[in-house]
């Protein structure tokens, strides 16, 4: 069974959760889903991340019992593991964009459905809902996800793949997305802006990897984006 089928089957298995307001499919599978017919040609990871707004935690928790074909991991309660070979792992992560702790990374405590709330996910906002047959997949706006991926603090292979996911999204971005990306960038703290530029510079110099977009032919695009962001710096 190909990866596309497994990804879509998994999203179908958690469809009751996806119907909850504010839920977003995030992470590395987003560019796969944004390919024509959700072709899913990028080989990133064999799991899918689901961002849960902390304000809707209780409603989402109530929907978990409707999930079929996956079960909660005993070791990591925010991870749901496939019971069948045609499904992939699901990681639930917390997103706090509006609360008093927005931008902070913390644990949302709960007896059965605790979540790690990632600070950078506060950059995400709801984008288009992808419809594939009977399945509705809520996606974030690309700009926030690009920023989130460029701010990766992972190193080595995983960090490189995060950056290549950002490239995959950049290649799909239109002028409006790039304008939004610039606005998000301007709103970041100085150390995060530096970190984002650092990520962009690393992306520009990455070696090609199989089943991932090759940065080499897009280096001029990255340089232009770099210059655009740099131009917003008042005190470089």
């Amino acid at each position, binding site marked *: 069974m190909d990866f596309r089928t497994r990804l879509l089957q998994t999203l179908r298995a958690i469809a009751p959760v996806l119907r909850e307001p504010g839920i977003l499919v995030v992470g590395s599978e987003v560019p796969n889903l944004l390919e024509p017919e959700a072709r899913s040609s990028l080989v990133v990871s064999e799991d899918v991340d689901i961002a849960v707004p902390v304000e809707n935690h209780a409603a989402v928790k109530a929907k978990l019992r409707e999930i079929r074909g996956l079960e909660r991991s005993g070791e990591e*309660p925010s991870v749901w593991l496939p019971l069948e070979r045609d499904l992939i792992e699901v990681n639930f992560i917390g997103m706090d964009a509006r609360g008093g702790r927005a931008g902070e*990374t913390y644990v949302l405590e709960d007896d059965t459905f605790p979540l*790690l709330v990632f*600070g950078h996910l506060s950059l995400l906002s709801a984008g288009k809902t992808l419809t594939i047959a009977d399945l509705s997949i809520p996606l974030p706006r690309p700009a926030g996800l690009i920023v989130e991926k460029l701010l990766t603090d992972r190193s080595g292979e995983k960090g490189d793949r995060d950056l290549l996911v950002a490239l995959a999204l950049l290649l799909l971005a239109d002028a409006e997305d790039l304008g939004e990306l610039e606005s998000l960038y301007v709103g970041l703290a100085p*150390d995060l802006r530096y970190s984002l*530029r650092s990520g962009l510079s690393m992306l520009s*110099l990455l070696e090609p990897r199989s089943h991932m977009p090759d940065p080499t032919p897009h280096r*001029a695009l990255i*340089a232009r984006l770099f210059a655009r962001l740099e131009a917003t710096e008042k005190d470089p």
Partner: protein
Amino acid sequence: MTAILHERARRARERALIRAWEYRQRSYSKGVWYRLRRVLVEAAQAWIIDETDADRLETLGRVPHPVGRELEPPKRIFLLGEEESSMVRHREQVPVRLCSRLLNARSLLLVLHRGAEGASLPDVLNR
């Protein structure tokens, strides 16, 4: 049950502290890799050139980028437009990435992306 999540949150907060420290150190030696990468971002091509050609470029008034002097041993890194770069005949192309061939070169010629020739490379030393 949440011990793993707390540990991951702790590591994330730790990385944020390191990031803030790196930002404060950016103008010092800690920031040199960023400055070198920043210069390489501008390059469509990278070429290793010999010392004679590097001397000649300096004689002709081309100033090596200051980031090269921050490295040990220092490098002379010239950024030129494609047309201007053709004045250097003895050169060996290397990929524009932090590979050993590029890092071991004493003198480098970086050819700017098309359209960037007229623009001045921003002073990235303090960014």
